[in-house]
C-alpha cells in the first residue's frame, strides 16, 4: 500500500538537508549560535573572576582601634589588594579614587572599635567606585560586604561565648514531601532541579514543532514553486504515500535541526555556572523524581502525535500556497497557538490556572507534550494519556484533511500568494 515511501523519504531528506536555507538557518546557525553565546558568557565570567582577584580596595581608617585593625587584616588575607588611604574624609579623595584602579573604598569611622566593645552597633561605609557597566563594579562592594558580615558574625559568636543557641535561638531545617513521602532535601534545591525541566522542556518542544512546521511547509511549497509537484502527482504512487513521505522527511530533517540545537544548547548550559547549592547532589531516583521508563514512553508518544499533527497542519495549509515564502507566512500564523502553551506552562502549573484558561490550553494540542513531560514528576499519567488520545484524534482529523487536499485537484488549483506590493519604477 505504501510502495515507494522509502524512495520519497530519502529524496525528501536529501532535498531538505541540502537546501542552503534549511542547512544554514535551521541546522548550522542553531548549532553555532548557542556555543557562541556560551563562549561569550564564559569569557565574560572569566574576566569578571580575574578582575575580582586583581581587585583593589581602599580603606580609610579613622578609628585606629583594635577591631578596625583586625578587619583590615581580614581584608588583606582575602584575595583583595588593600590600600590604606590617608584621608579624613571620602570627599577629599573621591576624585583620586575615581582615577585609580580601586573598585571600592571602606570608611571605618572613629569610635568603631569602642562601639563594638560597648555592645553598641558599629557602623562603617562601603563605597563602590562606578566606572561602567562591568561586573567588577557589582562584585567588589558585595565581596567587601560579605567579608564584613562574616567578621560581624564571628564577633557575635565570640560575644555569645561561641554558643550558637544564643545567636540563633531557632534554626529551621527544610525538608520536602514528594509523592506522599518525606525526603530530606530542601524544597528550594528540588525546585531548582525541577525548574530546569519545566523551562527546558517547553522551549525544546516548541522549537522542535516550529522547525518541523517550517520544514514541512517548505517541502510542499518548493514542489509547487519548482514545478515538480505536477509530475510527482502523476507517478504510480499513492497520494497518501506522498503525504506520508513528506511528513517523514520533514520529521527527520526537523529532528536533525533539533539535535543540532540541543547540542548547541547543551554547550551553552554547561557554560553557565549555576549557583546550585552544595547539597544538590540529590539522587532523584531515591526520591522518586527521576523520570521513569513509563514517563519517557508517555512523553515520546505524546511528542510523536503532536509533531505529526503540526506537520499535517503545515502540509495541509501550505498546500494552498503558491510558493515557499507564502507557505511560510501562512504557517507563521499558527505559531502563536504554539507559543501560548509555552508561555503559560513555563512558569505556572496548569492546575493553578483559572478554568477558562485551563480549558483553552487543553484544547491546544501543543500543550499536551508539555503536560506529558511533567507527568514524570507529578505522577498524573491520566491527564497525559487522555491528552495523547485527544491529540491523536486531532492529528487523524488533520491528516484526513491533508490527505483529502492531496487527493483532490485543489492541491494544484488552490492559489495563495504573498507578494510585496509592486513599486512603480523611478
Amino acid at each position: 500500500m505504501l510502495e515507494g515511501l522509502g524512495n520519497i523519504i530519502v529524496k525528501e531528506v536529501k532535498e531538505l538537508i541540502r537546501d542552503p536555507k534549511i542547512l544554514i538557518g535551521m541546522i548550522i546557525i542553531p548549532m553555532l549560535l548557542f556555543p557562541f553565546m556560551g563562549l561569550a558568557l564564559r569569557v565574560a565570567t572569566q574576566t569578571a573572576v580575574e578582575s575580582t582577584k586583581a581587585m583593589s580596595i581602599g580603606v580609610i581608617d579613622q578609628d585606629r582601634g583594635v577591631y578596625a585593625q583586625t578587619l583590615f587584616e581580614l581584608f588583606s588575607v582575602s584575595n583583595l589588594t588593600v590600600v590604606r588611604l590617608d584621608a579624613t574624609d571620602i570627599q577629599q579623595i573621591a576624585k583620586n579614587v575615581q582615577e585609580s584602579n580601586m573598585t571600592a573604598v571602606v570608611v571605618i569611622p572613629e569610635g568603631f572599635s569602642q562601639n563594638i566593645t560597648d555592645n553598641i552597633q558599629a557602623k562603617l561605609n562601603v563605597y563602590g567606585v562606578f566606572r561602567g557597566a562591568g561586573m567588577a563594579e557589582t562584585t567588589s562592594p558585595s565581596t567587601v560586604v560579605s567579608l564584613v558580615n562574616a567578621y560581624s558574625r564571628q564577633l557575635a559568636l565570640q560575644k555569645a561565648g561561641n554558643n550558637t543557641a544564643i545567636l540563633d535561638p531557632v534554626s529551621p531545617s527544610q525538608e520536602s514531601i514528594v509523592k506522599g513521602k518525606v525526603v530530606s532535601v530542601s524544597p528550594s534545591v528540588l525546585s531548582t532541579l525541577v525548574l530546569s525541566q519545566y523551562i527546558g522542556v517547553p522551549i525544546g518542544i516548541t522549537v522542535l514543532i516550529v522547525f518541523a512546521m517550517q520544514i514541512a511547509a517548505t517541502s510542499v511549497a518548493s514542489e509547487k514553486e519548482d514545478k515538480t509537484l505536477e509530475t510527482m502527482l502523476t507517478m504510480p504512487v499513492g497520494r497518501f504515500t506522498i503525504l506520508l513521505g513528506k511528513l517523514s522527511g520533514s520529521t527527520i530533517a526537523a529532528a536533525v535541526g533539533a539535535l543540532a540545537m540541543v547540542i548547541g544548547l547543551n554547550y551553552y548550559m554547561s557554560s553557565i555556572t549555576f549557583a546550585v547549592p552544595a547539597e544538590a547532589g540529590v539522587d532523584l531516583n531515591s526520591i522518586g523524581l527521576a523520570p521513569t521508563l513509563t514517563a519517557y514512553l508517555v512523553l515520546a508518544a505524546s511528542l510523536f502525535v503532536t509533531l505529526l499533527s503540526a506537520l499535517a497542519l503545515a502540509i495541509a495549509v501550505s498546500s494552498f500556497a503558491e510558493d515557499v515564502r507564502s507557505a511560510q507566512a501562512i504557517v507563521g500564523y499558527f505559531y502563536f497557538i504554539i507559543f501560548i502553551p509555552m508561555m503559560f506552562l513555563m512558569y505556572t502549573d496548569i492546575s493553578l490556572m483559572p478554568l477558562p484558561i485551563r480549558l483553552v490550553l487543553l484544547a491546544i494540542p501543543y500543550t499536551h507534550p508539555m503536560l506529558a513531560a511533567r507527568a514524570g514528576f507529578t505522577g498524573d499519567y491520566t491527564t497525559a494519556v487522555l491528552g495523547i488520545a485527544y491529540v491523536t484524534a486531532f492529528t487523524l482529523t488533520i491528516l484526513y484533511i491533508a490527505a483529502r487536499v492531496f487527493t483532490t485537484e485543489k492541491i494544484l488549483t488552490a492559489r495563495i500568494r504573498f507578494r510585496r506590493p509592486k513599486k512603480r519604477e523611478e
Partner: protein
Amino acid sequence: MVYAVEAEDLGKRFGDIVALQGLTFRVEEGRIFGLIGPNGAGKTTSLRIFSTLLLPTSGSARVFGHDVVNEASEVRRLITYLPEEAGAYKNLSGYEYLQFMGRFNSQNGDDLAKMVEDAASISGLGERLRDKVKTYSKGMKRRLLVARALMNKPKLAVLDEPTSGLDVLHSHHVRGIIKKYVEEQGVTVLLSSHNMLEVEYLCEKVALISKGKIVAEGAPVELKVRYKSSNLEEVFAEVAGLA
C-alpha cells in the same frame, strides 16, 4: 478496438469559466497526436485530465481503456507526464533525479540501472548529470525532463509543450529524441504545442482547439489540403475564425 487515448464529450469547468466543452477525439497506439491552439484554448487542461491531475466535469477520458477518474492508479502506471513548466529537484544531481523517478517504475536494480542509462543517453547531458540540477541551464533541464518522461518506455507519454522556452538547437535535439523514441519503442504520444512547425514535423494527426472546443481534426497534410493553406498556421487562422 482499444484506443491509447479516448476523449468522449469531455468537459471541464473552473467555477464559471468553461475550459473544455464536448471534446471528442481518439488516438491509436504508437501514434503522435498533437493538440494545437492559442493560450487558454484548453490544451493543458485536456492533458492534465489525461494525466489524472484534474477531474473532468462531464464526459469521459480513457487511457488504454482505463477511465482516468475511476482507474486513476491504473492510468498512472501507463503514462508519463511532462508539464509545460516542469522543474526537477534542484538539490539533487541529474543522476539522483533520474534514479528517484525511475524507482517508481522499475521492478529491480537492473531495471533501474537500464532506465537511467537510457535516460542519460536520451538527455545527452553526459558528465553534467553528476552536477546538481540547480546548476543546469533551462535547455539542459528540459532535456533531463524529456529523458525522464521517456526512460521507462511508457505506453503513453503526455507532453505539454515539450520544447517550451528552448532555443533552436535544444528544440531540435528534443524533437529528434521524441521522434526517434516513438519509432523505436512504439510509445504513444499526446502532445500540445504552439509551434506549428514542430507539430507538422512530429504529429501524424492533430486536433485544433479554440475556446475549449475542437474546431478541426486530421493529419497535417490533409488539413492543409482541406483548408487550402500552405501551413498549419493558416489552417488555424481559417478555422479559428469559424469557431
